[in-house]
Each structure stands twice: as structure tokens, then as C-alpha cells.
């Protein structure tokens, strides 16, 4: 949720345009934005003026053949330019809202050491964190780690440390630091698989599968994604890296993320935020953003499209109405997160 800021490349010509021409350009941009939105998303009819007055509009993504995959799309209008929205996304801290159940969020350098995960020792002592500790101490089959990583765990002296005992915190700090370094050097393709128990699962293959099943979205973001480490080797764009401790289905989960963004023509922006590692709950989660500058009621605004997609083992067992229910819950969670973001960033 923290796309990296990239400098705007305004062309000097724009500064000398007359006001009437600006208005015309804004109207055209508005039409272009809506038609571009319709070209790759599930939102084929959007009334910008109406959307600007309403809450975020959310819908389930196209059905996907792989039962582990789920996608939800949303769109909304926010005040200010896309660059300002990107900056607001960068600065937004989800830990300020307890209902989002993100307990810790810390930015990372590209070459972190276990010391960058020191905050794990001060994790809150809630049921989710206790479940992560218990799963780690018995090296539960549900832990998403590699066989090599599992060998490195040493239970050590019981009772040492806070909510997360020192040996558990040290184990995760080591795993997370090594995985972050692997991502920095070789993108998601360099990440060790989840093969501690059961068949091997690679987050890079999962994210590529998610994109393959949403061809229009993949095409829309192909230039951006090609410059990132998402689903492939390290790209040319430099990511903003972070780690989080959060709750996923009542389990404490440590997760690693990377955010990218890039400015396009006419003030548009694209951003991608990937959770490329998770200790449990989901294999991978990807959020893509497309932002267009629009003018609504004479004010510069941004039309935001957001696509959330996730691959999770637990989704694989859901069918029929359970799956619909799961989509509804994901839609509600996204609506909640976007609403809080907009409130924090002065959007509503």
C-alpha cells in the first residue's frame, strides 16, 4: 500500500496552454480515462460526477479457473492530481487503523539485516500473534517457509522475549531479511519456494497465474510489471520495500512487500504493490493502481482504479456460495481500507 513516488515529467509546453484549451484537455482526459477504464476493467459504465460524490465502487473481478485465485476491482474519484494520490498512498500507514489488523509496518532498505526486524520483539500480545508463535514453535505444516529455512529454527529457551519469544523473533528476522535480500537481487523469481511441507509452491508462479487469468489487466500493466520484480527477476524500477505483521483469518502473519509506481503520459500514473512473501494465510497478494487526472466540477481530481488479487490455499476449498461470500468479505475489506485511506488523505 506504499507505492513509490516517481518524479513527474511535465512538458514545458503544458505551462503555456491557455485556460480554454486546458478545459478542453480536461474534458477529453475525462472521456479518455473513462473509456480506458472500461477497456480493461469490469467497470464498463462509470459516471464520473456521480462517482465523485459516492463511496468507492467495488465489484468482483472476472471469474478465474484456478480455485486458489480471487480478484476484486474498485474505483473511486479523489481530489488532487494522480501524483498527489501516489504520494498519499506512499505516506499512508495502515497500522493507525486497528480494524485493518495490520499490527506493524516498517520500511526496509534493499539489503536488510535481521536488525531491521527488531520491532518484532515488541509485537502486540494478541491471539493472532500467539497463533504465529505457536505455529512457529512447532514448525506447523501451515507455515509457508522452505525446507532450508525450517532447518534454521531453534526453539531456544522458552519464555524469553515479549509476545514473540526471542528465538521465534530471531528466526523470523533471519528468514525475512534473507528473503528481502533475495527479492532485491533477483525479484520474486529468486524467492525460495514454500516447500516446508507438502508440494512446492512458488509465489512468482502464483502471481504470474493471477495475471495470466486476467489478460486485459496484464496487458494494461505490462510495461510497469516488466520493469519490476513482480513474478520475475529484479526489474529496472527500484522498489520501496517493507515488512508487516498482520492478521489473516485469525492467524498472525509476517509478510514482505514491495511497491512500485511510474508516471505515464498526460499525468497518469500506474502503481503496483505486491506482498511477495507471507508466513501463512495467502501465498501472494498483488494490488495494481491506475490513476488518471480528471476534472470534476471544475476541480482537478484523480480517477483511481484498483485491482486486488490474491492466491491462497484456503480459497482453494471454497465453492459456490462460500466463494461468493469470500468475495463479498474481500470487497468489504477493500472498501473499508479505501474509505479509511480517503478519509486520512482528505479525499472524503
Amino acid at each position, binding site marked *: 500500500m506504499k507505492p513509490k513516488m516517481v518524479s513527474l515529467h511535465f512538458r514545458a509546453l503544458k505551462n503555456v496552454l491557455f485556460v480554454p484549451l486546458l478545459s478542453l484537455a480536461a474534458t477529453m482526459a475525462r472521456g479518455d480515462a473513462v473509456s480506458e477504464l472500461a477497456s480493461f476493467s469490469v467497470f464498463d459504465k462509470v459516471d464520473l460526477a456521480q462517482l465523485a460524490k459516492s463511496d468507492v465502487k*467495488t465489484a468482483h473481478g472476472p471469474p478465474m479457473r484456478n*480455485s*486458489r485465485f480471487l480478484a476484486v476491482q474498485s474505483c473511486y474519484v479523489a481530489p488532487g492530481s494522480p501524483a498527489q494520490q501516489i504520494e498519499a498512498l506512499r505516506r499512508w500507514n495502515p497500522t493507525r487503523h486497528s480494524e485493518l489488523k495490520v499490527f506493524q509496518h516498517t520500511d526496509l532498505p534493499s539489503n536488510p539485516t535481521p536488525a531491521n526486524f527488531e520491532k518484532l520483539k515488541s509485537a502486540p500480545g494478541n491471539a493472532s500473534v500467539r497463533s504465529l508463535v505457536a505455529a512457529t514453535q512447532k514448525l506447523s505444516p501451515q507455515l509457508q517457509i522452505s525446507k532450508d529455512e525450517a532447518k534454521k529454527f531453534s526453539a531456544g529457551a522458552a519464555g524469553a522475549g515479549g509476545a514473540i519469544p526471542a528465538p521465534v523473533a530471531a528466526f523470523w528476522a533471519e528468514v525475512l531479511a534473507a528473503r528481502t535480500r533475495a527479492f532485491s537481487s533477483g525479484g520474486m523469481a529468486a524467492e525460495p519456494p514454500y516447500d516446508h511441507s507438502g508440494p512446492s509452491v512458488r509465489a512468482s508462479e502464483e502471481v504470474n497465474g493471477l495475471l495470466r487469468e486476467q489478460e486485459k489487466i496484464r496487458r494494461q500493466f505490462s510495461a510497469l510489471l516488466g520493469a519490476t520484480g513482480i513474478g520475475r527477476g529484479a526489474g529496472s524500477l527500484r522498489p520501496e520495500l517493507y515488512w508487516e505483521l498482520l492478521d489473516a483469518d485469525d492467524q498472525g502473519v509476517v509478510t514482505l512487500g514491495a511497491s512500485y509506481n511510474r508516471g505515464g503520459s498526460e499525468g497518469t500514473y500506474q502503481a503496483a504493490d505486491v506482498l511477495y512473501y507471507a508466513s501463512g494465510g495467502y501465498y501472494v497478494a498483488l494490488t495494481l493502481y491506475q490513476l488518471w487526472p480528471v476534472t470534476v466540477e471544475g476541480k482537478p481530481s484523480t480517477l483511481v482504479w484498483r485491482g486486488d488479487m490474491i492466491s491462497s490455499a484456503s480459497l482453494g476449498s471454497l465453492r459456490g456460495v462460500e466463494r461468493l461470500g469470500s468475495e463479498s468479505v474481500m470487497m468489504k475489506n477493500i*472498501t473499508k481500507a479505501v474509505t479509511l485511506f480517503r478519509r486520512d488523505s482528505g479525499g472524503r
Partner: protein
Amino acid sequence: MSAFADESSNWWPLTGEFTAEATYVGEGDVERGPRKAVRNFDEIDSDIHLVLTPRTKFGVLRLGTEWERFSFGLPQNAALPNTLQSFSAIFGLDMQFSDSILVRVETQPGLYNSGLGHLFWDDFNMPFVIGGTYIYSPDLQLVLGVSVDVERKYPVVPAAGVRWKIGPKWLLDAVLPKPRLQYELTRDVTVYAGATVRAATFRVDDEFGVSHGIPRLNHAVLTYSEIRTGAGFDWKISPMITLTGEVGYQPYREFDFYRAEVRYHHDGGAPYGTVALHGAF
């Protein structure tokens, strides 16, 4: 992590759900006034249903079939049918109206009678349900529904329920026909206490009344209802198959030929045991 990564891939193009369930109820009693009791009869219930759940633009279709049979070990003089059974098709649709509201419409047209010896057009019935779920939060959902069966004594029966995840391992799934309080023992094993409520209408054959000494019961409609209360477990044997075992007590049962005003009330309950295999693919 589980084996889903391989097992849930696209080797099978259809999605669906299935149940195969058998229940044995020990010897219980019903009575129709003090002198017309039917005592010490046992019961075997069998239920098989298979529903395909393809996803469409409008929602999740439910297309399938169900066979359900109640078999009673009745004494010879009892004016009750030994068998009640139904063969039905299932046509339904689950729709997502918003991120908070899911709606199900489902009908089960089929034959609801006391055996396949003599089939009549009016053995055909088409009960249906319309229900909605309001997703208040991931942990709390409210359910409201209505069941319609024109052959039933009360054709329209409303129902309400709640599904509340009380804690990480506790779930109150108070929704008919199987309200339960569940505790997740392990990732694959859940134990529960709850009830099963069953009610359906069947038409007995055209000579049933004469052969049982009450001519007005010829070709009569019978509403059969029972409630079971018990405890059991769900064991997820594989991602697609769950084994359920349940034991308990049946505190209520009624045979009601309501149009003919012949009703056998519950008089004595009995223990029961259920084994079921169910799952989704």
C-alpha cells in the same frame, strides 16, 4: 500450507458439492390419542445429493439432483407408511447483490411419495426457498429466508438465523436446517453440538387408506417432521472430502395427515447415529 497447490488446479472443469448421508434412529414412539399408539419402531434415513455449481455472469448456478428416503420399521397395524422418499432435481441460483448481500433462490421439483409402486402426477411437488444473507462483517452474517411448499400445512414458513464467528476457533452457525455451535479442534477436525430439523411433505399411495383401515388416507398428503439434537465431528479427510460422525437423541417427530386430520404426535424419543461423506469439488 496444504496440498491444495496441486490438487485444486484445473484437472476437472466443473465445480460442485455432494453429500451422502445415512442415519439410524433407535426405537421410538408416536401416538394418535391414548389408544392409537405406534411403539418401538426404528428409522433409517438416507440422503444423497449432488449439485453442480458453475459460475455465470448472474451468479453461481445450482444444478443437481437429490434422493432422500425415510424408512420406518413399523408394526403391521400402524396407519403410517413404511417408506417416504423423494427424487428431485435441484435448480437454484446464488447471487451477489452487493458486497453485503447474497441471495439464494432454489427449487426442488420432483416426486415426493411413499415408494415407486404407483406413480401419479400429484406425487409431483415443487417446494422452493428464497433466502438472503447479510454480511455485516467477516465474523457476523445474518440470514433470513422463506420456505414455500404448497402441499405443506403451513405453505409459507419464514426462518432467520445468524452465523457468528465468536472467536478464532468458535463458530455459532445458527442457521436451519442444521444449527450448530462448532469448535475447530485442529485445521482438519471440527467438533460441534447442534440440531437437525427436517420437514417435508409426501403423498401416500392410492390404496394406503383402505389397506390401513382409514379410507380417507388414500392418496393423502403427509407432512413428516423430526428434530435431532446431538454432537459430532467433521473430519476433513482430503480437500474434497469431509467425513461427519454424529450421535444424539431425537426428541421430536410427527406424522401429520393434516388434510385428513390424522396426526401421530411424538411420544417417545430415541438415540440416533449419523455417518456422512460430503464435500465440494
